[in-house]
């Protein structure tokens, strides 16, 4: 069973509507919404998956 560290956020793929729901819930403040695009700090992210549930359109996948 892979540990959390081995998982990664695949993408905020084509489904992303740049709404920022994931930004507000991220417990580590590592997701950001710059002018239009969602991004995240890979070094800070613990792959906790909270953002996956907060996303209304299922744009975030953790593999």
């Amino acid at each position, binding site marked *: 069973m892979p540990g959390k560290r081995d998982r990664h956020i695949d993408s905020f793929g084509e*489904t992303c*509507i740049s*709404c*920022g*729901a*994931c*930004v*507000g*819930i991220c*417990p580590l*403040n590592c997701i*950001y*919404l*710059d*002018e*239009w695009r969602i991004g995240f700090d890979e070094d800070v992210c613990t792959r906790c998956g*909270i953002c*996956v*549930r*907060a*996303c*209304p*359109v*299922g744009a*975030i*996948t953790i593999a």
Partner: protein
Amino acid sequence: MEDISCDVLVVGAGPAGSMTAKWAARHGAQVVMLEKRQEIGSPVRCGEGISKSWLPEVGITPSPRWINVEVEGARIFSPSEKVMEINEKHAGNEVGYVVERDAFDKALAIDAANAGTTILLKTHATGVLKEDGKVRGVRAKHFGEPFTIRAKVTVGADGFESQMGRWAGLPTNLQLRDMDSCLQYRMTNVDCDARYCDFYLGKVAPGGYVWIFPKGEGIANVGIGVQVSQVKSAAEVKSYLDRWIQKHPGYAKGKTIDMVGGGVSISQPVKQSVLPGFLLVGDAARMIDPLTGGGIANGCIAGKIAGEVAARAVQSGDASLEALLEYDRRWRQALEEKLLRNWIAKEKLVSLPDATFDKIIDALSGVKLEKLSVLNILKAVRDKYPEVTQEFEAFL
């Protein structure tokens, strides 16, 4: 971009930010307001329903430039679609106008600009400047070019997805149960009643509701909020909304012309909204009404107070924690009692089974409430379904 300095720096040009900027400038402060996007108010991420009662106290004059529809009331639908109607006089935060939110935000920014605020578009904060335990401004990028802005008072008005508070050192973290994940379609060719804002409760939207806010001419905002702790799989929020629309022929025949999403906090407000040289305001300070999900009124009311307190701090040369706590005290006086009451009500509602929603709405649909208060609601429900209100006997 050269480094700049100012008296009051406001990060975010939503309603709370523009209000803060306007009132700080009116009280003589030199104000700079940042907006990360190229256009204030766009893209809209909002249901666009607001009440009217609070507008005069914060100095907003209703304008046809941003009012779509003036509604008469709200209708609340139980899971079996029994209806309770609340007229405008008794309705809470969400009834009054359905607004064109981008035009509304621009109107407030124009007020701020007319009061003397400098507005920088395409400028986003990337971090907070801190010296000797005091917030002294931000690092930012303007058209991608890094620079710093120094300020005597810095205000975080950066909305639900606020980073300013956490950068400055105020905990604004939310648990899964403290947030609704929202999605809304603007639909045309739908059969909505333009006299009402409609709300659908129960399992159709666990821990939230489905809303229909009319925009006129057969157009409506059809949206949903679902408590994140009740979301079980990815994209479930969209599935809930699509399912609701499919079950309602008057909406299933409509066409979607716009789609927006976003988060809404349904928590209590932040425990601390002030640091030396720093204020947090609006959605960023978790001032959203946890029952209705409305954030505009509270953000504007707190924004006016923030602007006044920030300007006074500049004038007196004292932006210490003690001086700025005046802001914390005053917004809590204005908002906290209702926020707490509605949080308690929300905590109860998110756990109710559909059958209980049906009983409550059924009991209330038949009575004309003089005043919409928790006590009056409980009494009306008790008369018809005493078992529902058993645990509230102490209040009655």
